[in-house]
């Protein structure tokens, strides 16, 4: 029995990203293709940024189309706003690590429990995640200059939009109940990653 074509395509894409993944850094990655692609590359290759986005998109998808649309609207916009605020400020890296770990933990628990929160709360989560992660992205971009930083942010925002649209849309359209359970298992894993990262940050964080 052969896997469906979409699955095989997805597996190939996953392999390309898995083999191309590098150690995540506080600064943005350099692709050599210009600042827009640097921004896209940063989001896709930085687990500390992409995991909360995936978590938020999964949760928004579980809560339905309206929550997905609001997340799609708020997350990229607030991420950019947070990054612009970060460009003009200093941030403590340890606070960023702890917030990242806590965001994994909270989003993971919400997904695992399939918590029926109102749509407004999902939008508030998008604002919080976007604002804080964007802020620490902005802090990391301070040395890059305003124009390259804004172009990188454009790449990040475009990728955020695509990720949230694809993941939330996928979850909203799941036809069977057991498929939602798979999403909840993924959520429990995200929460476990958050808890371990939090312990790591408290033990070894600078």
């Amino acid at each position: 029995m052969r896997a469906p074509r979409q699955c095989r395509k997805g597996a190939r894409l996953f392999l390309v990203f898995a083999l191309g993944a590098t150690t995540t850094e506080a600064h943005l990655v350099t692709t050599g293709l210009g600042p827009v692609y640097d921004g896209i590359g940063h989001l896709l290759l930085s687990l500390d940024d992409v995991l909360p986005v995936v978590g938020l998109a999964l949760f928004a998808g579980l809560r339905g189309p309206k929550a997905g649309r609001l997340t799609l609207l708020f997350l990229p916009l607030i991420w950019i706003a947070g990054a612009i605020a970060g460009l003009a400020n200093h941030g403590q890296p340890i606070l960023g690590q702890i917030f990242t770990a806590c965001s994994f933990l909270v989003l993971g628990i919400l997904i695992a429990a399939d918590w029926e929160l109102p749509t407004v709360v999902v939008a508030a989560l998008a604002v919080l995640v976007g604002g804080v992660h964007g802020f620490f992205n902005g802090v990391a971009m301070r040395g890059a200059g305003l124009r390259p930083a804004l172009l990188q942010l454009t790449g990040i925002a475009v990728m955020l939009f695509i990720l949230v649209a694809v993941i939330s849309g996928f979850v909203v359209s799941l036809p069977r109940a057991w498929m939602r359970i798979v999403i909840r298992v993924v959520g429990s894993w995200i929460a476990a990653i958050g808890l371990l990262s939090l312990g790591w940050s408290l033990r070894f964080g600078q």
Partner: protein
Amino acid sequence: MIAVGLWGAQLGVPAVWLLPVTFPLVMAIGGFLGLVGIPLPGVEIGVGLSALLLGAMVAGEVKPRKLIWPAMLVGVFGLYHGHAHGTELAPGENGLLYSVGFVIATGLLHGCGIGIGLIGRWPTGQKIVRVAGATIAMAGAWFLWAAANPKPIESHVSAAKADAPAPGR
């Protein structure tokens, strides 16, 4: 962890989903306690006991009426496994990658157990799964014996001193 997957496959739905959710989460709680330095007594004994009891459950094809009992058993042992990993961890380069690897490896081991456990749909497969459970239980008994009778560890310094010639010879 493979025993958890095997047992989940024997118990069927919804345990096959519930156990792989419970174990990584509780294991992460144990890892967190270990990382922040909160002690847990008898960790090595707990790890040995987990293989012994979970292997015995698979070997005996035990199916409790209430799902809470397998979840609690798996949860308690997950705490011990996670704590052992958390305390033995040395400072590394990236805590997030470590955490992701830790959780994915746990999940994949459960997946292996569930995959192997699916052969239990056939009568011969059922026997093979039970034999696998018995093997895990025997390994657990050995771990437990080793944990209860730890060998004194000789440090490199004292070994070097013993090997060195006595002064004045």
